[in-house]
């Protein structure tokens, strides 16, 4: 037992760093995912993760595999896509999901073109799939910074985020904060995806954001506990995914997301609000 579960983390520094990085990332990403889900923007995270690719690729083209330029590039392009789709949906009849689909596809195409223009396919794999086992100090510092920003923003704007999800028209009738809060939220989405892409890659960082959140929905009907449950699921997935990747010599990012996926399937079946509980509902009922 001890050897199987604890030893890998005690013996190897890279495992400790991977564990630390993915736990901090879990705590930061999961609540963002919960709000994405509640705003029916679950696929937006996926779109945004594609969108930040060209920014990361640009940074990579000019500076190689260096974290800072890739991060800044991803951030700038991610925000451009968020802002562009927000502006188009605000000033035309087009809904935000449609305009975002357009912008992220453009962005993705540009990104792949850029990577294939200069980089080798091995580098492309690194950008797309990351490696949590190769987190250096800078990457860890970045993840911790992003987690702090996310935590502070959530603490300050919690009420506005909930109001904007629950009743946006009401919020507009009492305050002008709705629009800025929406953009701030999209910024947090981009930041957290960027935090994840060093560890999990652009394509999978959205997994640690969304899977724990949508799995948590099968267990609770309260926003605060949804966030806490999602964080717990994300941390558990990180831990089990790292162990799986260590013992089975598998790539760490996909292993973590795979574990989160397994928890999702389990929750969908056995959760308090899952399939089995609705199938096995007995005919016993209270009169009122």
């Amino acid at each position, binding site marked *: 037992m001890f050897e199987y579960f604890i030893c890998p983390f005690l013996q190897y520094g890279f495992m400790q760093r991977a564990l630390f990085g993915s736990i901090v990332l879990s705590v930061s990403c999961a609540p963002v995912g919960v709000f994405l889900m509640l705003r029916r923007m679950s696929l937006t995270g996926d779109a945004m993760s594609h969108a930040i690719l060209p920014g990361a690729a640009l940074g990579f083209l000019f500076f190689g595999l260096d974290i800072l330029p890739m991060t800044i590039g991803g951030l700038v392009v991610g925000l451009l896509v968020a802002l562009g789709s927000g502006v188009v949906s605000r000033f035309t009849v087009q809904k935000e999901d449609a305009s975002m689909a357009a912008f992220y596809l453009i962005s993705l195409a540009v990104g792949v073109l850029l990577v294939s223009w200069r980089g080798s396919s091995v580098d492309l794999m690194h950008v797309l799939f990351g490696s949590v086992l190769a987190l250096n100090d800078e990457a860890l510092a970045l993840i911790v910074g992003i987690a702090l920003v996310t935590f502070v923003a959530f603490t300050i704007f919690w009420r506005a985020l909930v*109001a904007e999800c629950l*009743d946006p028209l009401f919020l507009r009738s009492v305050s002008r904060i709705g629009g800025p809060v929406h953009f701030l939220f999209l910024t947090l989405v981009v930041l957290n995806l960027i935090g994840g892409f060093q560890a999990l890659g652009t394509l999978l960082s959205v997994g640690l954001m969304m899977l724990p959140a949508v799995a948590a929905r099968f267990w609770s009907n309260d926003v605060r506990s949804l966030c806490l449950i999602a964080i717990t699921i994300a941390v558990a997935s990180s831990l089990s995914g790292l162990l799986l990747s260590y013992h089975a010599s598998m790539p760490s990012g996909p292993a973590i997301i795979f574990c989160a996926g397994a928890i999702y399937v389990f929750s969908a079946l056995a959760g308090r609000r899952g399939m089995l509980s609705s199938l096995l509902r007995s005919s016993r009922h209270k009169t009122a």
Partner: protein
Amino acid sequence: MSDTCLKFDNLTLGYQGHAAVHHLSGEIRRGTLTAVVGANGSGKSTLMKGIAGILKPISGACISEFSRLAYLPQQSELDRTFPARVIDLVSLGFWQKRGLLGRMTPADKTDLAACLAAVGLTGFEKRPLDSLSGGQMQRALFARAMVQDADLILLDEPFNAVDERTIGDLVVLVKRWVAEGRTVLCVLHDHALVRAHFPRTLLMARTLVGCGATDTVLTVDNLLRARGFQEAWDDNAAWCGDGRSLDDASGQVVAHV
């Protein structure tokens, strides 16, 4: 503050250059209860949005003097599947007082309980929103409007799909608000209800047909006039000249640039 709470000054509101409320002028006095009546498409909800500041005027102005506004829209964007409880929804009403960060005081909590009691939802505090019936949801929204402690309250068809008993309860509540000195505008279709409970009426058909005491506004003549307007947009509609008088424009769809 003056006696007038709301003043429409040649107000034109609309969408994509088509007028929905056309050259409306009029006044609503403080502490009055006014029913806003008119056919579908006559611009009632658009007027409410204009007063609430959600829709900017194409021309003219809506001058309002109030410190807090409560607006209950006809088509709420409320997400009923959102994991929130009744108390979470109702306490949103404290936004204007407490803002983004302010905490609820013990007095606020007493207020909240009193408002829930007033709409008959005591004991529903912890109920999830998706478990409420249509009438209970409407009661909860009325409770939120009460919590807002607004001096101008806009209700847009608040009694749609609500049973008679609930309507009775809510009308009593609205009258109590007016007795407390608040100004209430309420969009309604039921003329009998308007005649029975609403002392003043604003009758519209894109333009103003009449505004004043209900008996003098809801006349056969006026109601006939209110029916005779063109509901559909007309791309060939004439552009409205600025100098045109109100009577010229009534009964036509007029596009605005």
